[in-house]
């Protein structure tokens, strides 16, 4: 998957033409790290793809890392598992202050 393809899928998620799934684990991380879904959608909207999507053999999706600032100003990475056809999933959201 190229960056452009990933950007197209992100646009589909934003326009509700594709569905974003998440696990209860993701919701736990969201709450524990004091983020909200406003942050998640903000990062998706900004579409700042960090590096080329990497195919993840085990889960059969392409891991895309989005970098940006959460609504409270924290530098944040959102990791998504995207599929050309099929469901995309939010994997994790991380505060990257101090993370190399």
């Amino acid at each position, binding site marked *: 998957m190229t960056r452009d393809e990933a950007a197209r899928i992100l646009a589909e998620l*934003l326009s*509700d033409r594709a*569905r*974003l*799934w*998440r*696990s*209860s684990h993701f*919701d736990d991380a*969201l*709450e524990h790290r*004091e*983020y*909200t*879904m*406003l*942050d*998640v*959608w*903000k990062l998706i*909207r900004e579409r700042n793809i960090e590096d080329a999507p990497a195919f993840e053999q*085990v*889960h*059969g999706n392409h891991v895309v890392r989005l970098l940006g600032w959460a*609504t*409270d*100003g924290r530098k944040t990475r959102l990791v998504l*598992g995207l599929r050309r056809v*099929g*469901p*995309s*999933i939010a994997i994790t959201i991380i505060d990257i202050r101090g993370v190399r």
Partner: protein
Amino acid sequence: MRVTTEICPVCESANVESSTPPAYRYRGAGLGPITLHGGVQQLICGACGARSIHIEREQQLLQVIALMLLMKPGHLTGREMRYLRSACDLSQAKLALSIGVRRETIAERESRETPGLDAGAEFFLRVILLRHFLEYLKSDDHLGAEHHGILRDHCKAVFGISDRVREHPRKRALAVRQVGKIWEPELAIT
């Protein structure tokens, strides 16, 4: 529960059970659980055991929550203040500038369960947040026509006095007329 043609978003197995919970405790707003009636799909994977959820039109849901908070009776909590600011994509510094206070004051109020604003200060804060929310919607609007109807009515009520002030910026002489046994204002007050 029913078995569908869905696949597990985690492992791609087709061995999933899909359901639409009649009531779902939504935690994505960071405001404590909000009960959603409908609009949620849940998948439980028989292969990897993952439980996944999808919220229909979640961006709209988040803006409807903001609308509800702007119209909420009673005081906002610190978390609700923070949510509203975030829903307008405002930093603490920008909100502080709009209100004319220090950024630290916003941070401190948002960290409290009860921010401790009196009714006048809270009204002022909500007017500022409402204006920012309207501005934000110009570039990222997920609300439907019915929500805009509610928002219009709310704006009319909130901005009524300030709009009248703006419409009549010049000093005008007041006139009052006696009609029967009562005094009636000549400037229409509606």
